[in-house]
């Protein structure tokens, strides 16, 4: 079947008037029109996915690091191997780690692979901070608690952990900010997050507005998360502020 005879084809003026796209054509640094047109279809989904990726990674990393830290608190022997392994993982550049994980069958090119890598980055930070926080509790405080008749468990939950809170939250803060930064790279293998519009914009002949907007959103997200966690830290540990003064 050869091509049909061409009927009269109507070619509309796409997107309304051509002047409304002058900014994009000139590839200026920031085209507000493009942003408003593409917010709900490109930018917001990417931002939302990015937040989800980051929150899940920190949550899972925290859970694992917390459990490991509690074990290491009782059994010193656990500390070295955990620090060693997570230290090695932490040193491996993220893009490399993402790619190394891709061939493993259940993972592949998906958010799951990204999460596995992101969690391994948070592990070192969180483990170290939780353990340091627990260890830094002065011995006499612990002895006083024992003297008051508290069990080891009660001491842990009622005395040691509250005192370790500043260090723990500091760790959560660093881990969150680190993960937000790394999640932009994760977009290369899992097609989610703010890295997607960034990478697409670069391939699009460096479409400046998209780069600045998506990049700016990533930076803003990280700074906001950092700021919020600082506030949380201050709210949960008012005594540490007094000490710092």
């Amino acid at each position, binding site marked *: 079947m050869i091509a049909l005879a061409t009927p009269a084809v109507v070619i509309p003026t796409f997107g309304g008037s051509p002047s409304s796209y002058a900014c994009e054509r000139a590839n200026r*640094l920031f085209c507000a029109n493009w942003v408003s047109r593409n917010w709900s279809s490109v930018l917001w989904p990417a931002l939302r996915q990015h937040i989800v990726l980051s929150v899940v990674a920190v949550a899972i990393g925290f859970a694992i690091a917390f459990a490991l830290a509690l074990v290491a608190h009782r059994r010193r022997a656990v500390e070295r191997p955990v620090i060693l392994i997570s230290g090695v993982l932490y*040193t491996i*550049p993220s893009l490399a780690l993402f790619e190394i994980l891709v*061939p493993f069958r259940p993972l592949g090119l998906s958010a799951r692979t990204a999460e596995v890598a992101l969690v391994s980055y948070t592990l070192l930070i969180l483990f170290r901070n939780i353990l340091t926080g627990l260890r830094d509790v002065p011995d006499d405080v612990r002895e006083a608690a024992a003297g008051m008749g508290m069990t080891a468990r009660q001491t842990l939950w009622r005395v040691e952990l509250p005192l370790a809170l500043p260090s723990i939250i*500091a760790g959560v803060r660093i881990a969150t900010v680190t993960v937000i*930064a790394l999640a932009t790279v994760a977009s290369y293998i899992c097609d989610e997050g703010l890295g997607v519009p*960034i990478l697409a914009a670069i391939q699009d002949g460096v479409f400046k507005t998209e780069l600045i907007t998506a*990049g700016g959103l*990533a930076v803003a997200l990280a700074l906001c998360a950092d700021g919020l966690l*600082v506030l949380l830290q201050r709210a949960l540990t008012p005594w540490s502020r007094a000490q710092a003064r």
Partner: protein
Amino acid sequence: MHTLIEALRFIGHNGALPSDPAAPTLVHLTLQMLAISGVGIAISLAVGLPLGAWLGHLHRFSFAAINVSNFGRALPSLAVLAIGDAILGLGLTVTEVALVILAAPIVLTNAYVGISGVDPEIVDAARGMGMSGWRILWRIEVPLAIPLLFAGIRTAAVYVVATATIASLAGYNGGLGYIISDEQSYHLSGVLGAAICVAGLALLVEGVLALVQRSLTPHGVRLEQDVRGEEDLDALLPVTSASPL
């Protein structure tokens, strides 16, 4: 695993591409990456060390000096590269600028905290002996601050290597990222091979710097560290991670 074997074979063949005999070899790309990273680290050290050390010696601008690394850490590297691309265009210059923006703060903060954290009694004693500020800095504060200085240098160096890998996603065609960003030509086995090389390179850089640190650490400080049982890896993260601010 099939892909892993293929990847190792790829490394063994020095990254040869059957479809393109003129493709750059793995050795060439690795050296290129070392060169890019080296320039980035060198400039970051040149910017961060003197400034951080001097401010630490004077105990001035502590808030800014300590928090600049928090700010720098919060900047997602891909976002910084992207915004740089939009403003300065693609290429090596943008990559180096981004590397310095991301790595210099870490060096600065660690230098500041290291120098300013030297036992004030020692500094007083030195001043009492008639040493000038300059000599105090060089002969007392810097040697005693080696652990923290190097914590910053090592973190920054690994960070630079990681960001140099990502730079290939942001339109810079060089280094091992050249392979990782071109799965079309190199297939997953090639990408995996390059990723393994990147990981190895980062660990090598970290290891070499750890050895340099060990050799530069004054004997007395090293003894003290061994007595306290401090982990070498413990110094991987900037000290600000533990202090609530």
